[in-house]
């Protein structure tokens, strides 16, 4: 192909972060006037690659050509000068200023007098051209998320971008807004713009993309394939891969009575959009139910409704005792343990000591909780025991929890949550960001709990983890359970299909 027909050509791009090869010799091409989907799981290296194109990162090696010309970006400004604009997932707008003011922000013109009337007209003209309507005089805080996104797009267009990178633009939108966005994208390509569309949703790729590049763990698994030539199943497989890094002994066990029962549970996310849609699940004693899915498909909300941190409709019971829509203390008293997704923001208090952190759930109970007072001497002893038993590396039990490394912090949380001998446990991303040794420790601890008869709900984006630990696997996509399978006869391709939003089709 003639390099001059390409809007972007990235060759052999290598980007390294401490300890991670984020992009491993990645090739990527964008044709003029096409919509090119960049597909991959969270952490596959999509955003990293695009940040290199937008001038935010510098690749260790590899070359970038824009419109046939070799470029070497030192800052986003250089990339903008070459017509590359990025619409970030998190908007960068000033809420109290108008649409026009936000678009003009940081530009050389106007120099002193704002001349808003004149620029409002210019922006209206730009809107007409691309079908991106939003009132120029409106203040950002008055706009819906979809409209704010249009402002972000207008910002890049106003700066003369003809190559647009859109980083998971649909993640924050409602279905109606997604449709409008797709229309806008089509109209932009008709006007000669080229678009890179980062996503992890297969359905959207099929709807809109001309070509697709798939990344998995920093490597290209499908390079700029035309959408006519590939099947969804094929893409799903390339996205999730099939190798399992290590397997762990999982003994057979008779499952016991139903511990957790969820019936038609629906919940909204923080932005008021539906995050869980009529979820029904059962977890039995001595069983690990794995929840597989791409991040942001309702997993956080699922963990929160069970632990009382989020309201919902429908019914959740633990051993026939209703716990939905009750304060978190109710679930704790019912023997629900929770390994939260976010160790630092939710799981621990960073400036308080290890002791203060280990008694967080149990300080009400004898003998540590003793009427109005807390027996801190006993609490220290108890913490010391846990520190030994779970091999938590810290100078002393008086050390602030915030000084611990991620792995040790996670062990601290596990020690606390397991030590209460829970009947039911929600483990969300229990090994995220940990090294192999710590992962094995934590897996062993979870299996030990299963052996003791706890019911465990394991929510993870790591398929290896789901496959290694689970007795049954449920797949969640856009807040819906796509299907539940026994892990023995689970097929990774099938799981991959469900993760990208397709219902389980077999009986």
């Amino acid at each position: 192909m003639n390099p001059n027909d390409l809007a972007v050509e990235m060759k052999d791009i290598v980007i390294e972060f401490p300890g991670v090869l984020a992009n491993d010799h990645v090739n990527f091409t964008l044709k003029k006037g096409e919509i090119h989907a960049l597909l991959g799981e969270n952490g596959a290296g999509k955003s990293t690659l695009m940040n290199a194109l937008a001038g935010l990162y510098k690749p260790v090696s590899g070359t970038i050509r824009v419109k046939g010309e070799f470029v070497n970006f030192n800052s986003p400004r250089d990339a903008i000068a070459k017509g590359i604009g990025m619409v970030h997932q998190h908007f960068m707008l000033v809420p109290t200023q108008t649409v026009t003011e936000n678009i003009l922000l940081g530009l050389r013109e106007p120099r002193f007098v704002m001349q808003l009337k004149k620029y409002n007209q210019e922006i209206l003209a730009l809107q007409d051209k691309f079908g991106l309507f939003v009132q120029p005089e409106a203040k950002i805080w008055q706009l819906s998320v979809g409209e704010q996104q249009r402002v972000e797009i207008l910002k890049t267009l106003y700066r003369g971008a003809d190559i647009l990178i859109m980083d998971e633009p649909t993640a924050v939108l409602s279905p109606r807004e997604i449709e409008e966005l797709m229309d806008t994208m089509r109209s932009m390509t008709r006007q000669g713009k080229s678009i890179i569309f980062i996503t992890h949703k297969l359905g959207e790729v099929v709807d809109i993309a001309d070509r697709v590049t798939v990344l998995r763990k920093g490597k290209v698994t499908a390079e700029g394939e035309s959408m006519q030539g590939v099947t969804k199943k094929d893409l799903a497989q390339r996205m999730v891969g099939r190798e399992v890094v290590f397997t762990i002994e999982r003994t057979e066990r008779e499952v016991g009575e139903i511990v957790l029962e969820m019936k038609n549970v629906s919940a909204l996310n923080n932005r008021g959009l539906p995050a869980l849609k009529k979820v029904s699940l059962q977890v039995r004693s001595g069983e690990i139910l794995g929840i597989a899915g791409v991040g942001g498909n309702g997993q956080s909300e699922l963990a929160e409704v069970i632990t009382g941190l989020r309201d919902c409709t429908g019914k959740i019971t633990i051993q026939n005792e209703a716990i939905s829509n009750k304060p978190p203390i109710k679930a704790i008293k019912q023997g629900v343990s929770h390994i939260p997704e976010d160790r630092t923001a939710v799981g621990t208090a960073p400036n308080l000591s290890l002791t203060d952190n280990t008694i967080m759930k149990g300080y009400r109970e004898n003998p540590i909780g003793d009427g109005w007072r807390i027996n801190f001497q006993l609490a220290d002893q108890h913490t010391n025991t846990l520190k030994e038993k779970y091999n938590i590396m810290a100078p002393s039990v008086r050390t602030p929890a915030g000084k611990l490394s991620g792995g040790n912090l996670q062990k601290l949380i596990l020690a606390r949550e397991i030590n209460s001998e829970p009947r039911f446990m929600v483990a969300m991303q229990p090994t995220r960001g940990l090294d192999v040794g710590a992962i094995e420790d934590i897996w062993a601890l979870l299996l030990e709990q299963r052996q003791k008869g706890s019911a465990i709900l394991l929510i993870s984006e790591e398929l290896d983890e789901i496959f290694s630990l689970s007795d049954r696997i449920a797949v969640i996509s856009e807040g819906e359970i796509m299907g539940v399978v026994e892990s023995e006869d689970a097929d990774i391709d099938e799981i991959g299909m469900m993760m990208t939003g397709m219902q389980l089709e077999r009986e």
Partner: protein
Amino acid sequence: MSIKLRIEQRVEDVPKWLPIATSVGSVVVAFILGGIIFKIVGGKPLQALSFFYQAVFGSWAVFSDTMVKATPLILIGIACALAFKMRLWNIGAEGQFYAGAFGASMVVLVPLIPEDSPKVIVIGMMLLMGMLFGGIWGFIPGYLRAKYKVNEIITTLMLNYIIINWNNFWIFDQWSDRGFQMTATFDRVAWLPRLADYAKEIPAFSGVTLHLGVVFGLVAAVIVWWIFRFSRWGYEIKLIGDNPTAARYAGINISRNIILVMAFSGALAGLAGMAEISGVVHRLQESISPGYGFTGIIVAWLAKLNPFAIIPVSVLFAGLIVAGRELQPAGLSFLLQGIILFMLISSDVLLRYKIRLVRTGEESA
């Protein structure tokens, strides 16, 4: 080769003595800076310092005066420390102080109890009413914050003006003593015992105005210290203060704690108002506080929210108030207060960062 200062983030734990050293250092530096300014405007700093010492600690009578001024600061400092520990910004201690004064005055002026009740009953009742009214004045912003997420900084600040004008209504109109902007002096039965009351038995106490209120302050310090150190409630307050999300996850009812802490904080400030009315002014009048409620905020911070450290810090600030009455120019003591606060805030950097001297030649090596 030159020497450069380098600021590095602290990795290891902060040594125990350092917070104390920075607090004391802030005060010392503030006095030195204050002295320099005093010199520039044409004063004699050393003489002023010795005068300051005389005016504050010079004799038992003078020191007692300082302690009388320290009493409301101790109670209000503790009230603020309690709320600040949970990161609730109660800056309405001034209003809660007035509310407490009003509640205590009601006992005498309405009157709520028969006029011939024994002293124990009258004082006990005033104490309860003072704490109740201060508590209500803390409960309101606490409730609004817990239920409707209304910013407590705004509400506590605004409630200050409401209660001050409410008090004015009563002293200008309903309870006015012959048209003066004050109520009639309370009967002695409503006065807190003072050391001077025992001058007959112990002549040295003659003229010493120190009253029972200082004991309230000391008891409050012990109780709140115990709460912070050993109690379940104190643990919940610490946890909410450090990470409210984690506290919610641990099953703690945050709304209830916000309301409780604000009400208790208000009650302590109200107690300060009661002690001032019953121990010093002996009637309800305008301007019973030279800004105790705001100075108490500084006191709590300077003491790093430690109830026991609040006591000496209150004495220092009381000294500044006392000296301010006698020292010219009178603004000097406000100036010192301001500089102390400024020094204190800047010294916090030392707790988070280390300063190292580096030879530039060494650095590149």
